């Protein structure tokens, strides 16, 4: 709950550089005293004692020596704090990617696109200032003034008291104003990302704005939004900067008080000039770390704000119950292929005859968090082994939920899913997924070559297998058209594919993976008709000997299925063959008739 404590805990095993940094900065503060002593001596000798220049040489030498030491120690302190920060960031980055992996695709998709990558990259970057500047400064702000006080008190207790009396004002004011400013900085961070998101949204939607002839009038909307953002931010800053104003004033007024007090005592000869100058030289250095803390406080708070997004990602990931290796940075070689769960058809003779074991949903319910309507409610059904089951039903019937449960992107709230009588939750999740090939509705293509995009399904596959998958998925002609063939980069830095082409690439992946359970999500919704027949054949080949689940709206795609499962409102309302359903399911009959009119 205490955010600073949580931030502090991120340091973990990287304390050493931070301690060294603080020690170096403390030593630098001692050098400051040496500098002030030698310089005040020097000026005093020249001004009051009227010493000849040659007699001043020792003071000059000491001054130069202390200066150099101070600068070196200062640099060391800076460098060490940075070293520690880099280590913390590296650690945190690894933990975050692990947490994202653990929370899975449904979580990633529930957030606005780019939100996770922003947290991962910019969020972690925003923490830099907290660790490399704010935290060391916080300690230094206690340490350096203390060292100076120890030096000043013996020679001039009056100034010492003034310093001691004014110093606590700084943290006091900071705490008073900081609280309010903290809440405002939080809001500010929100506005900032919203503003930049708004602008990006407009740019991305530019073609659509043009279609509605609204693109030029949008200029004013952007200007308005910018202006609103500016006024809102300035309102925050006017208060936020008050904290540094207060700190600054305490520092300068303290300096002025000491100067006047010293001056008056010099008049009455209560103080020597040398001591007076010594104290005066140290006064700015007494307030400086406190003042800088005020500046870095801001940077620190920005880091604290950003950390909330980071902790939100980390917290949801639990303690890594699924896979230890995911939680924490990865060292050492890539874990190659985990424990392969064998199945018949792949080369292990004693393998469980997976493809002959049916998959059963038994009383499976699932509700999305925050939703009152269950997406699936006590669904009981069977997906027979080695055959094709089509799932259909109106939008929102629970088809995607069914698929996500089977892919283990989410776990049932109640009920069990079994494969061959064994609950699928008992398989290690990685091992379970080894058994499943998946062709999603909107396959994602990575910013790599087409080859790597397909090979991801089976990295050790031969060229022959790859080319076969390409051919089977009807991608041959497409590959021939690409400038660098199968080695053409895909995505933003290369060729972009249409939805249908992306689906065919996903099919090629499925061919490569050669898994016993096949899950297809509306596989032919975007492809063109000439290819569709080819694809149907390809999919037919793919489905042979495999337990297949197809989700589709298009009845022609599923009509050839062995079993058709009709879902409505999260429940199974009918199941059977096409012929049976024409009799028994109103939804199916209506959908088929409206769809099929022109066909007949």
């Amino acid at each position, binding site marked *: 709950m205490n955010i600073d404590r949580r931030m502090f805990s991120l340091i973990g095993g990287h304390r050493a550089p931070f301690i060294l940094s603080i020690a170096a900065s403390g030593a630098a503060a001692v050098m400051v005293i040496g500098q002030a002593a030698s310089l005040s001596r020097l000026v005093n000798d020249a001004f009051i004692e009227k010493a000849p220049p040659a007699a001043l040489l020792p003071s000059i030498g000491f001054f130069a020596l202390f200066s150099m030491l101070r600068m070196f120690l200062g640099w060391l302190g800076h460098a060490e704090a940075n070293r520690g920060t880099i280590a913390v*960031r590296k650690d945190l980055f690894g933990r975050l990617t692990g947490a994202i992996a653990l929370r899975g695709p449904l979580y990633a*998709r529930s957030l606005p696109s780019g939100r996770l990558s922003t947290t991962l990259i910019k969020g972690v970057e925003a923490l830099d200032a907290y660790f490399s500047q704010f935290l060391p400064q916080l300690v230094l702000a206690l340490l350096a003034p203390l060292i100076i006080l120890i030096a000043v008190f013996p020679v001039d207790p009056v100034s010492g008291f003034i310093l001691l009396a004014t110093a606590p004002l700084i943290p006091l004011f900071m705490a008073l104003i900081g609280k309010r400013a903290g809440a405002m900085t939080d809001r500010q961070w929100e506005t900032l990302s919203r503003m930049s998101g708004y602008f990006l949204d407009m740019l991305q939607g530019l073609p659509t704005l043009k279609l509605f002839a609204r693109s030029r009038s949008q200029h004013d909307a952007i200007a308005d939004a910018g202006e609103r953002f500016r006024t809102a931010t300035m309102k925050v800053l006017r208060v936020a*900067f008050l904290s540094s104003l207060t700190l600054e004033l305490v520092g300068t007024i303290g300096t002025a008080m000491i100067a*006047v007090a010293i001056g008056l005592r010099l008049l009455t000869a209560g103080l020597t000039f040398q001591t007076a100058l010594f104290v005066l030289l140290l006064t700015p250095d007494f307030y400086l770390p406190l003042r800088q803390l005020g500046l870095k406080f801001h940077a620190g708070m920005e880091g604290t704000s950003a950390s909330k997004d980071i902790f939100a990602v980390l917290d949801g990931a639990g303690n890594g119950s699924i896979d230890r290796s995911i939680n924490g940075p990865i060292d050492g070689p890539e874990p190659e292929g985990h424990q392969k769960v064998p199945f018949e058809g792949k080369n292990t003779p004693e393998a469980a005859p997976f493809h002959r074991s049916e998959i059963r949903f038994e009383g499976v319910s699932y509700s999305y968090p925050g939703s009152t309507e269950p997406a699936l409610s006590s669904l009981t059904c069977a997906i027979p082994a080695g055959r094709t089951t089509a799932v259909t039903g109106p939008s929102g019937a629970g088809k995607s939920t069914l698929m996500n449960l089977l*892919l283990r992107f989410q776990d049932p709230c109640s009920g069990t899913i079994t494969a061959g009588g064994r609950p699928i939750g008992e398989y290690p999740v990685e091992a379970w997924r080894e058994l499943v090939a998946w062709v999603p509705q909107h396959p994602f293509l990575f910013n790599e070559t087409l080859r790597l995009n397909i090979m*991801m399904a089976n990295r050790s596959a031969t060229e022959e297998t790859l080319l076969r998958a390409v051919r089977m998925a009807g991608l041959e002609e497409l590959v021939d058209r690409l400038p660098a063939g199968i080695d053409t980069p895909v995505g933003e830095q290369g060729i972009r594919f249409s939805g249908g082409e992306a689906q065919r690439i996903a099919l090629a992946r499925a061919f490569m993976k050669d898994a016993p359970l096949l899950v297809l999500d509306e596989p032919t919704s975007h492809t063109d008709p000439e290819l569709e*027949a080819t694809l149907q054949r390809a999919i037919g080949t793919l489905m042979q000997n495999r337990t297949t689940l197809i989700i589709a709206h298009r009845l022609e795609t599923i009509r050839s299925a062995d079993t058709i499962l009709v879902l409505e409102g999260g429940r199974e309302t009918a199941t059977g063959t096409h012929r049976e359903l024409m009799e028994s399911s109103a939804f199916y009959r209506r*959908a088929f008739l409206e*769809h099929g009119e022109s066909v007949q």
Partner: protein
Amino acid sequence: MSIFFRLIRIVRPWAGWMLLAAFLSFAATGSGIGLLMTAAYLIAKAALQPPLAALQIGIVGVRFFGLARGVLRYLERLASHDTTFRILTSLRLWFYDALEPLAPARLMQFRSADLLQRIVDDIQSLENLYTRVLAPPVTALLTALLLWFLLGFWSPLAAVILLSFHLLAGIGVPLLTARLSRGTASGILRWKAEEQMLALDFAQGLAELQMYGGIERHRKRLEHAESEKLALERKSALVDGMQETLIGLIMNAAVLGVLSAVLPEVSTGTLSGIALSIATLAVMASFEPFLPLPGSVRHLEADIHAGKRIFEILDATPEVTEPSSPRPIQGELPIEATALSFTYPGTLRPALDAVSFMILQGARVAIVGPSGSGKSTLTSLLVRFWNPGSGTLRIGRHPIEEYSPEALRRHIALVSQRTYVFAETIRENLLLARPGATDHELGKALRAAGLNHFPTRLGEFAGQHGMQLSGGERQRLAIARAILQDAPVVILDEATASLDAPTEQEVLRRIEEASEGKTIITITHRLQEMERFGSILVLKDGRLAETGTHTELMRKQGVYHAMWNSQHQSIDGQQ
């Protein structure tokens, strides 16, 4: 350098604000120097034990400068932040205005959100052009001048010595650190770009990575990019620390230098010891504004880098420009293509190859053909995203180029699969099509598009890219927008592809009802209920292969017949 001046030109309207902020910054620094100088004066004078009244000037000065520095610094920070935000808004507007005419033809490579995001970040990074790049040198220069003036009073030699140290700190150190960290800033940007791409792939492709066991491999790549970036950041931080150390050393050397110039004069009595004390403290205080200068150089490097990428995009010439005297759009809008050809830049094969056809106002026409046959290109030409390559495209009997592109687009409603849903409310997304429409009108359009439960949800947030809505809902929202637009020509480009069959039929029927007298062009590769079209244009490889009604085309036994058969083969085989 020319990039730098082009950037400067964009922020020039805010020159007054920038000057004000720079002056406030200088005044705050000057007050800090004044505070130490008057304090030194005060104690040096007091050490000579004059009457109390003689100290009055010092006491007042110390108090004045003490207050002034705090207040001026506060004002300066407000002014410079305000300026920064103004600059950011101008930069965004400038970028938007420059980009708007280029969309979408010249932005083909930016279809992905990620590249655009990077450009948006580039613009964001330019916001510090003032605070980090322009302001520090001005403040440092003014401070150096002030000191030159003050010291010159007592000792011209000391002033010259101080000036040389100022030059060393103001020019020497930045040059040195820039040399040491050359390429660091751009290297960080490069790795960050790589990392961003990987992070987006990671977040969006998580499902695929999980299904194919690619998580650990991808994480390693991400962490590699992060490590490389951090290594460069560390280098840059070390140089940063070194620069502070160097300036500190130069400051101390300057103190010694000035002292060595002044001391002989003090010992001979030509200069008072008071001046000695004041000069020492003034010199120490005067180096503060030099600290940010090396940072300025690095920020300049980064800004020019960002500026270069931005200008690379914006320097393209727009594909479509407004005619000088656009023809008003009135009456019926028949569409006629004569030997129309079009080839996308950078490709060899024409997307449209000598296509000729005529579509009368009020007609119901389908354009069919496999993907890549040129169907969507035809749409892009009609809505003036591209200019026809050769041949003519007439609308309302006049070449399409004679109309204002904006006016023309108001007369054509296009529903395509790529229709964008903004991260605003559903209401805002609909109002785009008809500004000022009442909720009642919006509700009617939503119901017509098959979104019966939406009229009560107008205030709901559609989510980024409309992600709060399902694919089918987004598509129906796009249809509702087209209905609201109420244009005489409606193009449905695979508009109902992701709807289930009953919904699709329902929506098509409603569109038909709402489109009395309007031209409806349906682009599809799915041959269903083709009898409802008065004529069907069959495109193949950019050419018009056949035209006619469904019955005619089936009888012809040509391309269409083959397509139809291949599509219905599997069903026929079953029965």
